[in-house]
């Protein structure tokens, strides 16, 4: 059975979370994909102010589709996390505690999760319509000019994720291979 956690509880419990744990998250996620990561990395490297606080943030690799009038958000499933690997250690060093996406990560992300006591979670890809029903509110918080690649704040309820990389360096994908 998945455990229900608020984002604050989730962050607090990171050291105890293990690869393979199923969770239902309630709280705020910030979306970011390729173009937003590139901009954030540039701002961090140039020591410029950031458009959102990264301390204790949960970053969701997602570029939602447009919402129909009356819907809180458009379809919003995960994109491939590996494309964000080059930027992830930098973001974790700035206080991001969890990332959410789909697929495997590089060894440097595994190391960075251990160093910064962070986790990486996966969510089922290609079920974006279903996931949009877990979002109660959304708004663009940065880089609106990027269109679908803007950074969105998503307020989610019972958002279903599985811990894929824990802060000890265990991977759910290795567990599957070993079975």
């Amino acid at each position, binding site marked *: 059975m998945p455990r229900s956690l608020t984002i604050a509880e989730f962050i607090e419990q990171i050291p105890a979370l293990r690869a393979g744990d199923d969770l239902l998250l309630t709280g705020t996620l910030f979306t970011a994909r390729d*173009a937003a990561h590139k901009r954030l990395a540039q701002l961090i490297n140039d020591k410029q102010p950031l458009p959102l606080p990264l301390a204790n943030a949960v970053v969701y690799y*997602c*570029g*939602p*589709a*447009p*919402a*129909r009038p009356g*819907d809180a958000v*458009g*379809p*919003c*499933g995960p*994109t*491939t996390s*590996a*494309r964000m690997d080059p930027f992830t250690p930098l973001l974790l060093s700035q206080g991001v505690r969890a990332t959410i996406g*789909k*697929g*495997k990560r590089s060894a440097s992300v595994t190391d960075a999760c251990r160093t910064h006591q962070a986790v990486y979670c*996966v969510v*089922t*890809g*290609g*079920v*974006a*319509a*279903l996931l*949009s*029903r877990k979002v109660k509110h959304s708004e663009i918080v940065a880089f609106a000019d*990027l*269109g*679908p*690649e803007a950074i969105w704040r998503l307020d989610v309820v019972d958002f*279903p994720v*599985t811990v894929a990389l824990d802060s000890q360096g265990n991977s*759910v*994908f290795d567990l*599957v291979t070993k*079975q």
Partner: protein
Amino acid sequence: MRIIPAAKITETVARLCQQANYFLPRDVQEALSKAFQKEESPRARGILTQISDNARVARERSIALCQDTGIAEIFVNIGQDVHIEGDVLADAVNKGVALGYTHGYLRTSIVADPLERVNTNDNTPAQITVTMVPGDRLEITVLPKGGGTENASALRMFPPSAGWPNIVEFVLETVREKGINSCPPLIVGVGIGGSFTSVAKVAKTALVREIGSVASDAAYATRERELLDAINALQIGPMGLGGRTTALAVHIEHAPCHIACLPVAVAMHCHVMRRMTETI
């Protein structure tokens, strides 16, 4: 000769772009429910249940199945007795894509320049493949192709000394290395033969076939079964989290090729195997 107004093509493409993105085809839904029956892993069964719930939510609310509503791959089979009046075909199709995506709450995922990377904001241009066929009809297939599945696809030019076992190894290697990022359960389109240019098109054409259909050539039909079994033996499972269902289908299409070449392309597709066809 039969005259088809370009506006009719635009209107049809717009409608197909939306329907393809909202409705998971029946053959795909059936293949997914068969896969569910065979799965023992609770995690795999849970993911397959989410996939079937997702198809219901998207259908009921007329919203996209996946936020990645794809690059619009459009296959047009034109009867040679058809005359298109008005816009040239590519313009008629692209107008339809722009209309369908911007009015259908579909994500626009195309950048005008691969290095400058500024979004065109209407999902154009589409990838259009035109084939001349006999008759006076015009058949349009829209296949919205997600970026993750494109990145997981592969092409290799083998020497003719290579054979079927090398092709099997290449397909398995592609699935092992990149399959997870293509949202399994997969549909794997394999193109064998043609040229560097055409082999990828051959592989993509294979994706258009319904799940459950077999290659028209019996030897290739046998190879499809062999590959499907080999891929599912990898136990990658739904979303790479383990299970019996790594692929729902393998479709192979082949074409004549040069005496020096054996081109092979693997067109990967996710479980959201969207495609919609209409004949004008």
